């Protein structure tokens, strides 16, 4: 189907189904239970999962295929966001032109940076991209404030001169982003017994675009172009000796992955019309590197898994506080309850960084291929078990989102 082989089609379908039913999959616990803390099925986080998924998929096209480790990819995401918000301010609240402009702008920016940076390879390339991104961040934060609104971030105001649309709605508020009238923020809530599921228009648009990006990434991975990029990774010198100029290929990969980042940035701004400079900081660039490696660089699904993993920690673990802990352990006798809270306390809430750091280390140490390898190991183990005849084990695969 779609020009993919059977295995890839299955993967695409699995991802599609996961994305489609994410509001259910990510909300396994009843809304009023103590475990509801771990539910991730609310619009903002689901949007983030797929948007950062796109970002990581794009990054993987460069890093996974060519081996060029860019440490400045967040700059393209930032450029995309700024372009989109400016489009909302000046043209219309429709997300399509905004997303288009953000992809184009990010692409141009990537072309420029890529053209210069790709003159070097290895860590020299990484430092060049890092330097460009840090320069963009520092300038966006200070000197370029007229364009970026600096620290505060670029926001919509009530006096934006919107050419196709109104500056403010009838009741005096800022209009919201939409897709031909379908508001990105509109959400249907579905109460099913104690469960609450939320279906958000913005999420489904993002998920759709993520699937398209994922499909495109598969096609790139399987194309002769992708093969060429892999050849660059395994031995660029040999490629050069055969008289082939590899630069256009790597540059194309760089621009494509920059456009993916711009797309992610544009989508982010479409879901929530704000663009902050810290989106371009080196830590943000580092984050996408972590997502990709953590999930499994060079694999198709890995980056998406990694993105979900990191965003889940950032948004779920940081919100657990001592009160919540006491609720969890309430069933225990008092002394034990306090002891448990005391033990868990450093790892949650303000300690979520610590938990994330420890998990990074564990994954890198024990799963060199990233989480995907972990999933494969478990799958292989399960298969072996099943072959032996004991099929009472449950498959525990990482959710794609």
């Amino acid at each position, binding site marked *: 189907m779609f020009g993919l082989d059977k295995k890839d089609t299955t993967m695409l379908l699995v991802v599609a189904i996961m994305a489609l039913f994410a509001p259910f999959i990510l909300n396994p616990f009843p809304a009023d239970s103590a475990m509801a803390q771990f539910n991730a099925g609310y619009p903002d986080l689901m949007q983030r999962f797929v948007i950062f998924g796109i970002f990581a998929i794009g990054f993987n096209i460069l890093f996974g295929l060519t081996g060029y480790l860019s440490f400045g990819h967040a700059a393209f995401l930032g450029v995309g966001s700024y372009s989109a918000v400016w489009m909302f301010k000046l043209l219309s609240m429709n997300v399509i032109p905004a997303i288009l402009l953000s992809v184009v702008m990010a692409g141009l920016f990537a072309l420029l940076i890529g053209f210069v940076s790709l003159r070097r390879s290895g860590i020299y390339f990484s430092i060049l991209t890092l330097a460009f991104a840090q*320069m963009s961040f520092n300038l966006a934060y200070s000197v370029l404030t007229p364009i970026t609104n600096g620290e505060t971030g670029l926001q919509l105001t009530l006096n934006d001169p919107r050419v196709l649309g109104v500056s403010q709605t009838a009741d005096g508020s800022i209009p919201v982003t939409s897709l031909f009238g379908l508001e990105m923020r509109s959400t249907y809530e579905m109460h099913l017994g104690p469960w609450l599921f939320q279906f958000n228009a913005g999420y489904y648009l993002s998920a759709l675009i993520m699937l398209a990006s994922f499909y495109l990434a598969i096609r790139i991975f399987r194309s002769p172009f992708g093969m060429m990029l892999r050849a660059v990774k395994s031995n660029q010198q040999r490629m050069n000796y055969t008289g082939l100029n590899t630069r256009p290929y790597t540059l194309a990969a760089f621009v494509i992955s920059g456009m993916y980042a711009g797309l992610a940035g544009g989508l982010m701004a479409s879901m929530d019309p704000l663009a902050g400079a810290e989106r371009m900081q080196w830590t943000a660039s580092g984050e996408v590197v972590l997502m990709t490696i953590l999930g499994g660089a060079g694999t198709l699904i890995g980056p998406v898994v990694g993105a979900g993993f990191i965003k889940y920690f950032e948004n779920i673990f940081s919100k657990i506080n001592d009160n919540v802990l006491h609720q969890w352990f309430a069933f225990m006798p008092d002394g034990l309850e306090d002891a448990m809270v005391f033990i868990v306390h450093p790892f949650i809430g303000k300690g979520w960084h610590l938990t994330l750091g420890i998990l990074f280390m564990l994954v890198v140490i024990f799963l060199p291929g990233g989480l995907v390898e972990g999933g494969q190991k478990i799958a292989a183990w399960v298969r072996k078990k099943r072959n032996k005849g004991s099929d009472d084990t449950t498959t525990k695969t990482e959710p794609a989102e």
Partner: protein
Amino acid sequence: MDAILLQILNGLDKGSAYALIALGLTLIFGTLGVVNFAHGALFMIGAFCSVTVQRILTLSFETVDESQKDFLGNPLKVKTPYVESWFGPETGAAIIDWSVPIAILFAIPVMLAVGYIMERGLIKHFYKRPHADQILVTFGLAIVLQEVVKYFYGANPIPTGAPDVFKGSFDFGVMLGFEANAIIYPYWRLVYFGFAALIIGGVFSFLQFTTFGMVVRAGMADRETVGLLGINIDRRFTIMFGIAAAVAGLAGVMYAPINSPNYHMGMDFLVLSFVVVVVGGMGSLPGAVLAGFLLGILESFASMNEVKSLIPGIDQIIIYLVAILILLTRPRGLMGRKGVMEE
């Protein structure tokens, strides 16, 4: 003229910190081939050695003073450091005053141990792994280290003063024939520069003039051959890792009075020190030191008002701009060898 001299001093001082951190990074990369993203964290731990020694020296017992009230209106509990009660108020206060220099003695064994444990416990398993994995695992370690420090010391900066004799500033201007106050520079920063020069000199002479150093240098050039000669090069490299950690740590110890240490100071230096290492040339020790001072001085010049009014925002980007220019004109950095870290 005086403004330029002043900025050169500033640059040398900033450069000292950059050079020390970059030196350690390069030692680790040159010997073990490991990209250590936790190096900034080692610098931070060094600074917190100062804080810890200060805390230990000011460990206090409380006496209730009825004549004063605390913020709740209860009698005030006055804290007296044990050191002051043991050695008398004067000597005690003097010991506390000198807590940063004392911390050097404390930091050397601590940092050597931290480096040793890090290498044996973690880094050792990553020699054969791709650089990306090394970056990820050491980055994770850096996060863990800084979060642990944050857990015990909080997120706010902690004031750690230099001894009283080093407070205030020295007037170079008068010495050089300028008017008074034209070029003044804080004593402690001068001490820092001297200290950095000492450490850098120490590391170089250690490598240059000792047998151990000679073997290490040989190992850096061709690890395999040295190994074939029956020399246990791994063990020496482990020790070099400890030394690199100690260099970063000592840079941190002495840095504490310049800017109050906080838990994320390592991350602030991390990116910069990588830029320094790459500009200097991966694996080149003199390159790292040279680039450290060069970038420090350029950064200081860029923050001059005259320069800033010419190119707005130049002080925000100068380091990166220089890095880009150097990498485009001298592909392997200032003093790097060909073919290092290019794939």
